[in-house]
């Protein structure tokens, strides 16, 4: 059954994009979008249940495979893809009634959104490394026009930086994958199936120096796409200028696809090149990213840029978790990816509601939200506490696992630095949102238009997940995460 399930899963967003392109009335666009993403979610959960049960669904030989590591990313793409699609309906409908966008733009938006989700699903499902690269590089190409959606000067600047820097990064990663192919040639002969399962079977016999070179190239290249410092400079621009539902996908989901490209290369090269050396590189990039992000978090005046820098911090933390190398930290990093996806998309939904109402991104211009938009204020406050890693939320669990895992692995310096950075980052995140929610309402209270309730639904869904995961990680999810962690720290 899984033989047909995977192709169907990939066909759904493409079919939705085609229908969207042909359809005219907004209601049809919304219906198609919602239906497509419900279907994707249902199919993905069916497939993931199989993976947890011990199956390895595949299609077209080894071109498309679903394993635990890809499964974590698939889970993120399907769930956050669904909430973002629903949020898009409310958000863009508001923009349409406010005449901020036209009907043609609406159609373009939804068509691109579906193709964007397709490229991310393909990244999670690609078993062949060439296909994996194509899918990850493709996510940029499809999402750059979405970053430029509003078409004024700033989004355009952001989109241009985004596409140039991440495409250059992807090319470096391709260089890495080609060197990895060459490493395989030493063992498997000049022509072989460049898939994850074939290479991982011979991974310990690859030439060490070539394998290490391949990993470093992929780390630097896709590191640029995953927002690791110092290749992160495009990220705060792109992740703040795009429409809010797109920001949720860029920050919450797309970064994880690039991280998957790095982790796959890590799993294949570590046995030959020595896991210790490669982990050191991951730790270095991870700690540097967190450091840079926290410095910019502290001085930030724009709430969407604040969230964007927080994404750099969180991806840095994922790199640290994998770099620490002990199972506790690595499975913490996997949980971190899931948690970050939900809490960051939640925050972009909540701040998106503010944007629709007040049309400003300046932290200083928003005040007294508990009086003005109580439903959104609750989202913001609970969401920012969750994102910053306050107990009892799930990010506290994953951050604690990563830091204590690093300590268990005797990586004392990274553990201490990361703990300190997380503390500073916590304050830098919570303080501004706290002020926006609770400070006295400004004289201009009541201005702006009311926002339709559809924008609250996906945000509250995410909130339920974020709160729920803090108390209880369902055992299938736990099995998925620890299975993925075993690939990276056997």
């Amino acid at each position: 059954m899984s033989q047909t399930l995977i192709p169907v899963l990939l066909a759904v967003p493409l079919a939705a994009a085609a229908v969207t392109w042909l359809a005219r009335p907004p209601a049809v666009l919304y219906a198609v979008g919602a239906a497509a993403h419900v279907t994707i979610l249902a199919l993905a959960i069916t497939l993931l249940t199989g993976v947890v049960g011990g199956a390895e669904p595949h299609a077209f030989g080894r071109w498309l495979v679903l394993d635990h590591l890809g499964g974590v990313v698939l889970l993120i793409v399907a769930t956050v893809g669904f909430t973002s699609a629903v949020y898009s309906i409310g958000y863009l409908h508001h923009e349409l009634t406010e005449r901020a966008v036209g009907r043609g733009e609406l159609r373009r938006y939804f068509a691109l959104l579906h193709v964007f989700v397709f490229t991310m699903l393909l990244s999670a499902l690609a078993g062949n490394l060439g296909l994996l690269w194509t899918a990850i590089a493709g996510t940029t190409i499809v999402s750059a026009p979405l970053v430029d959606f509003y078409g004024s000067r700033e989004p355009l600047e952001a989109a241009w930086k985004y596409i140039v820097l991440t495409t250059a990064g992807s090319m470096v990663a391709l260089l890495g994958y080609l060197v990895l192919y060459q490493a395989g040639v030493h063992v498997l002969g000049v022509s072989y199936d460049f898939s994850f399962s074939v290479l991982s079977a011979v991974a310990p016999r690859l030439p060490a120096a070539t394998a290490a070179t391949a990993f470093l190239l992929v780390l630097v290249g896709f590191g640029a796409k995953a927002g690791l410092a110092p290749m992160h400079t495009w990220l705060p621009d792109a992740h703040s200028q795009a429409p809010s539902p797109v920001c949720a996908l860029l920050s919450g989901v797309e970064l994880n696809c690039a991280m998957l490209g790095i982790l796959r290369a890590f799993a294949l090269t570590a046995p030959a090149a020595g896991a210790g050396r490669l982990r050191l590189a991951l730790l270095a990039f991870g700690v540097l990213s967190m450091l840079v992000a926290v410095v910019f978090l502290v001085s930030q005046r724009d709430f969407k840029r604040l969230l964007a820098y927080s994404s750099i911090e969180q991806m840095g933390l994922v790199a640290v978790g994998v770099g620490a190398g002990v199972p506790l930290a690595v499975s913490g990093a996997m949980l971190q990816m899931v948690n970050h996806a939900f809490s960051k998309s939640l925050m972009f939904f909540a701040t998106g509601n503010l944007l629709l109402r007040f049309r400003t991104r300046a932290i200083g211009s928003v005040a007294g939200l508990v009086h003005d938009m109580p439903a959104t204020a609750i989202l913001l406050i609970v969401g920012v506490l969750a994102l910053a890693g306050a107990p009892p939320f799930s990010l506290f669990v994953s951050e604690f696992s990563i830091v204590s895992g690093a300590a268990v692995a005797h990586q004392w310096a990274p553990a201490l630095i990361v703990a300190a950075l997380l503390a500073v980052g916590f304050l830098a995140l919570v303080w501004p949102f706290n002020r926006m929610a609770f400070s006295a309402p400004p004289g201009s209270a009541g201005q702006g238009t009311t926002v339709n309730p559809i924008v609250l639904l996906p945000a509250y869904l995410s909130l339920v997940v974020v709160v729920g995961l803090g108390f209880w990680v369902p055992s299938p999810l736990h099995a998925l995460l620890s299975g993925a962690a075993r690939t990276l720290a056997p």
Partner: protein
Amino acid sequence: MDLTEYVLAGVVLLATFWLLIARRIRAAVNGYSFQSWALAAVCLVTFLQSGRWHLLVMALSTAAIKALLIPAVLRRLVRETVYDRRETRYYVGVPSALLLGTGLSVAGFVVARQLPLVRDLLGEPVLGVSIAVVLLGFFIALARRDAAMQLTGLLVAENGLLLLGLVLGAGLPMLVDFALFLDVLVGAVVMGFLIARMHETVGSTDTSELTRLRG
């Protein structure tokens, strides 16, 4: 046969220098088209050598997509939006660009010597050329202020990667090559679209004027 492929690889490298010093966008597009023809010829030679059919397909698609289609799209874009005869600006002047470019080429050959290579179709000198072309492409994308020039820089780097793919992974299945071509084509179109928007919104394609986003 060895000699032919080395000469062709040399032509690919020389074409990169053409792009490095080109002042006008149209000249850069012509340089890219010329380089792509040379690359298609390399594919053709390796096909004749090895008889692997997917190399012939690659030669044909390189010629069709990279030597003809993308340059045609770019020329049209340039005609419609950018003043194609206008001289573009550099962050790095031509003499220093040439000097740095030569340094990067040497670096490419040095790196190639470090990589233990199982020779399939092409040898180490071509590997050196391909790494040099990738580095030069990135350099062009960085050193130019004009968005259209930055795009040609990335396209050149991608040509270098294709040549590198021929050296390191000629056994890769054809579907992978097609996926890469699709990425290049769609990527070039999207970037062209953004360049056109830039011309509309900002009034020029000089990226040094895009400095509103900071902090």
